[in-house]
């Protein structure tokens, strides 16, 4: 990989910077524009720190930042590294900081950005290479909250399915929409400052299973969730819910968990005959 260097690398056929040109080849004659990107680059084999590199590429106006990155990789610099898969805000792999905001690159529309677009790897995660971050810590935390059904009582398969009413489903449905994109971790200053914090998405997933009428694993999850590195590390900044592309609302889940954990404590310590007496 060439060392990151200042200056703009652009596609040979780039239109004048910032200009919009009609593309006769595209259906509906949609407009194209020159997109300028400032991308944070890091090569683990040669670099000791990351530095910005400028690119200019021509993209359809209705495109997204991921399209611009793909254009850079295809026509300007094949060494640029980033993750993506679905291009439709479903797989959660293209999370990055776009102008300082955690975003899915496939969901960040170019029309919403003027001037140079600054693209950096997700904040609070170690940079593996260029825009690729190391999600190991998040994966580890996900495992710790036991994000799977722990049935209240197991029954043989021929006893039939565990049934659930629509109302029981609605109790947790929103929290099951997480796509593990980690944008909430990049937005959460608590996680940035105190990396041992289990963090928004993993705790929300614990809440999702706790709220499930078929589940009986809350006590086990509380051993991780109701601790100082669990929900009590959260100071309700609320940034997680603001950036979540799947409208999961982790801030809501965590505050509910705090209330439920407080009720547990009161029952245990202050009510005669509670579990603690």
């Amino acid at each position, binding site marked *: 990989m060439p060392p990151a260097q200042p200056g703009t690398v652009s596609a040979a056929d780039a239109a004048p910077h910032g200009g919009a040109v009609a593309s006769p080849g595209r259906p509906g004659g949609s407009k194209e524009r020159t997109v300028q990107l400032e991308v944070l680059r890091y090569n683990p084999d040669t670099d000791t720190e990351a530095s910005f590199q400028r690119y200019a590429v021509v993209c359809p106006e209705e495109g997204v930042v991921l399209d611009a990155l793909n254009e850079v990789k295809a026509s300007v610099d094949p060494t640029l590294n980033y993750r993506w898969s679905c291009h439709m805000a479903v797989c959660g792999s293209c999370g990055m900081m776009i102008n300082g905001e955690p975003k899915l690159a496939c969901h960040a529309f170019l029309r919403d950005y003027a001037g140079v677009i600054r693209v950096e790897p997700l904040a609070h995660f170690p940079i593996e290479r260029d825009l690729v971050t190391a999600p190991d810590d998040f994966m580890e935390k996900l495992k710790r909250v036991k994000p799977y059904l722990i049935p209240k009582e197991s029954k043989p398969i021929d006893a039939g399915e565990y049934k659930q009413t*629509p109302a029981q489903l609605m109790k947790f449905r929103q929290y099951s929409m997480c796509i593990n994109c980690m944008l909430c971790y990049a937005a959460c200053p608590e996680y940035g400052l105190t990396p041992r914090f289990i963090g928004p998405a993993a705790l929300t997933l614990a809440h999702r299973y706790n709220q499930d009428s078929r589940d009986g694993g809350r006590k086990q999850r509380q051993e991780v969730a109701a601790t100082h590195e669990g929900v009590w590390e959260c100071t309700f900044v609320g940034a997680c819910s603001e950036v979540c592309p799947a409208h999961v609302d982790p801030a809501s889940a965590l505050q509910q968990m705090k209330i439920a954990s407080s009720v547990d404590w009161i029952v245990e310590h202050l009510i005669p005959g509670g579990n603690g007496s």
Partner: protein
Amino acid sequence: MSRNPLVREVSPTSWFFRHPRYLRYMSREITSIFVGAYCVLLVVAVQRLAAGREAWEGFLLALQGPASIAFHLLALVAAVYHAATWFNATQKAMPLQIGEEFLPGNVISGAHYVAWAVLSGGVLFLAGVI
């Protein structure tokens, strides 16, 4: 492939300048100082009251000074901001499910504002202001 991930530190003293939403959060946290200071003032008031008429009247006189009035105005603004942001947040902390639907969040926050108005009215009534 060798791994040599680059860890970036978060500054514990300036992180909140990174984004306006963090500044909003910090400004709310700072209002707690005024709310706390006002609580201390109330404790001092009780202590002065217990110390007798002279102490109490001296305390009342001190409250009328310009510094005290400025503090009260600031504390009022801080308390209102703190309370309003808290009421707005209650819909996240205590969503109410009725059947398959959830009560709209602004009904939950709105109920807190109504309770606030009623309680404030009650206090003002007891104080003989209304």
